[in-house]
């Protein structure tokens, strides 16, 4: 299952990355992208498919968190 939301790369371990979504952590393959710890990524089917600039990822996560609270 994919998650259409940026997650933060917590660490690189054994050729995989661990992605933190706040509500949980998932492992993913990052062979399609140049990834470092602290990057924000979009993962589809356990593969990193896009890296999202940190500022925009954090802005977006804050936005949907606040939007949900305001609904």
């Amino acid at each position, binding site marked *: 299952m*994919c998650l259409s939301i940026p997650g933060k790369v917590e660490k690189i371990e054994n050729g995989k990355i661990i992605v933190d979504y706040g509500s949980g952590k998932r492992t993913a393959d990052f062979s399609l992208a140049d990834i470092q710890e602290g990057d924000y990524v979009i993962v589809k089917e356990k593969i990193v498919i896009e890296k999202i600039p940190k500022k925009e990822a954090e802005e977006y996560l804050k936005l949907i968190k606040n*939007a949900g609270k305001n609904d």
Partner: protein
Amino acid sequence: MLEKMIDETPEAVFFRYSAGCAYQLFNLGRITKQDYDEIKNFRARGEIPDRAFLEKVYPVAIERIKRLATSLGRDYWSIEIIKKYFLEEHNRVIDRGEGYYAQAPDVIKELCKVRVGIVTGKEDRGFIVYTVDFGGREEKVVGKYLPNAKKGDKISAHWKEAVDIIR
């Protein structure tokens, strides 16, 4: 297992286009955790929800599709109308900055848009990953639910997932 997701029925086409929005809708409080989990389960099983479920979970998109269908004198559960909505009207909603799109970063708005590009590469990683040229910029797009596109095909993509071959 994925045959139903790949089907060319109105429900399958609508679900392929709309499924990528589900996490946003859940986070925005527009759908329940139960509905979100059901969407994930449908996708995992490669099955398509029925119209009643889709109309409950995506009322805003359905309403816009209904308006479009009415203006054209068509039934709203029509493949042609659904595709027309997602390929034409959906992006205009984002560009107009309706709802939370008013504040969403540009990179996220681009992911939310339905984009059309040309397949330039295709690889099998247990599921298909396409390389797609979106007007000069090549990007990777998952083809799990649209595995049959070929190099040179024009496809639509939503949230980095291939959705449809544009004929």
